[in-house]
């Protein structure tokens, strides 16, 4: 990356403009240093780190199960996806088998999380481009999804619902019925959003052919998720490297070849429909059985057992006070988050605390592609480009 302005002549002609960190369309505290010539953007330099809280360092001082609540706070729009990636990585280190009901619940909650995240993206992206109504509609449905989170975990956003070895709690009575009603209604809601945007001439003018990214550039710059699929690269880890039982589900992976903002929009809206399809499949085929793995040294015992069985009380005490040891080794577990490949690299040295936890955030990867998208575009299109990569700063700065 060259320092700019590069030459004295350029200095006379161009202007360096700070966009953010406090700017409504940067979806958090992203700062972009733009070098502009009139309305045209010549170069873009993203500056990040305003939200850095050292979560990776904190993880090294916690027991394995204490890291789960930290993972919620990385990508705050999809807490369960983070929980899942971390739990899967530790379960792989332990060699732990998860009962089918817990797996299906994980898929169900994970897809609801994807819907939640995509709804926030759709609403704010449309609002950035001037469509206010969509925002209100999206947040109406998002409220329903957050209520489901509250039902299962007691929390609307920082859920920590997935635990190492299974789930925290049984889903409450009436939960599946409520989700079923939502799943029946939701495709109609997506039609509503699409009716406002997909054929809307203003929206199309703002998005079609804007912030183009070729397939080769997308791969070279490390873009992932809908940003990569919008450029015509067909990869989805749920299908290509199935985890937590995704191999039992039928779904299509939307891929567009246009590589512009509109293509990424279409990919994500189609994903909303596929996700609700998976929610319906999960509800229809939900197996019966336990929600935690049978591994008393790792998984906390039920409250009932603790009142009647001495061993359960001892294990509970030991897990809470000393944690559990994990065999030495290392695992890189990648899953498909709403924004792309979310990877957790967990290294164990055989003690009760992780030696290293590294989070590979999809927004971090996508942000590198942003500069390429914006060069030669208008300033107003930078806003469309940021929205189209669905950036979450918590995920970048960690």
């Amino acid at each position, binding site marked *: 990356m060259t320092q700019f302005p590069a030459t004295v002549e350029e200095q006379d002609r161009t202007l360096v403009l700070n966009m953010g960190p406090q700017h409504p369309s940067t979806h958090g505290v992203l700062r972009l240093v733009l070098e502009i010539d009139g309305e045209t953007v010549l170069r873009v330099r993203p500056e990040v*780190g305003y939200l850095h809280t050292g979560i990776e360092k904190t993880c090294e001082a916690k027991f394995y199960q204490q890291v789960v609540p930290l993972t919620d706070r990385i990508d705050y729009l999809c807490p369960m996806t983070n929980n899942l990636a971390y739990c899967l990585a530790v379960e792989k280190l332990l060699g732990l088998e998860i009962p089918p009901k817990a797996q299906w619940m994980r898929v169900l909650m994970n897809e609801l999380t994807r819907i939640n995240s995509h709804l926030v993206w759709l609403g704010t992206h449309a609002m950035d481009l001037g469509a206010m109504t969509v925002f209100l509609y999206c947040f109406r449905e998002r409220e329903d999804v957050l209520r489901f989170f509250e039902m299962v975990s007691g929390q609307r956003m920082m859920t920590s619902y997935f635990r190492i070895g299974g789930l925290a709690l049984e889903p409450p009575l009436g939960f599946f019925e409520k989700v079923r009603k939502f799943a029946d209604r939701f495709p109609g809601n997506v039609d509503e959003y699409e009716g406002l945007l997909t054929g809307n001439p203003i929206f199309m003018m703002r998005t079609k052919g804007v912030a183009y990214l070729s397939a080769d550039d997308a791969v070279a710059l490390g873009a992932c998720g809908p940003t990569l699929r919008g450029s015509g690269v067909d990869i989805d880890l749920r299908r290509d490297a199935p985890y937590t039982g995704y191999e039992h589900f039928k779904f299509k992976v939307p891929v567009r070849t246009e590589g512009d903002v509109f293509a990424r929009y279409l990919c994500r809206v189609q994903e909303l429909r596929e996700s609700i399809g998976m929610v319906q499949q999960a509800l229809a085929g939900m197996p019966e059985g336990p929600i935690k793995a049978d591994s008393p040294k790792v998984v906390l015992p039920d409250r009932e057992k603790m009142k009647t069985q001495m061993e359960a009380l001892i294990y509970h005490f030991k897990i809470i006070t000393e944690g559990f040891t994990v065999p030495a080794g290392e695992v890189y577990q990648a899953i498909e988050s709403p924004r792309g490949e979310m990877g957790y690299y967990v290294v164990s040295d055989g003690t009760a605390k992780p030696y290293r936890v590294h989070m590979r955030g999809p927004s971090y990867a996508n942000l590198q592609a942003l500069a390429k998208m914006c060069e030669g575009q208008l300033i107003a299109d930078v806003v469309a480009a940021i929205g189209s990569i669905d950036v979450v700063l918590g995920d970048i700065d960690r």
Partner: protein
Amino acid sequence: MPLSPAITEIEQLKAHPVLARLLDWNVSIVEAAKFDRDELTIWIAKEAIRGTCAVLRDNSNSPFNYLADLTCLDWYPSEPRFEVVYHLLSIPTKERVRLKVRLDGSSPAIESVTSVWPSANFYEREVFDLFGVRFAGHPNLKRILMPDDWEGHPLRKDYPVEGYR
């Protein structure tokens, strides 16, 4: 699924296509290899990392055209202290491999792979920022997450969790 023991003998792992390709290219660069929990790890000689990455990226059977992740481990106080970790993904075949390079603790430096995958840019800056490993040939090696005037490298093991007071 009980854990099966890790395989650490290069002889036993020779059949793996990625390792076979590297051994075929240059035997001396492979320092060690491990197959554990369905993941292949290959330790590469420090000088050869950029060449190895280019060979794997242009590999005809399964081109590792995507750098999924790049990070670092600090094994303080043992030596060699640092391990730079590369997670590669082949988008056509969906195969993954992990490369590792050992670096000593006195002045850790390694060649940058930004010329192989431009996406390495931010990752290498992050490793430089948090571990203090220098990447030769990086176009813009500056701190990325911490402030520019920060002292020390927070993810090193001799850096206290609460920071220096």
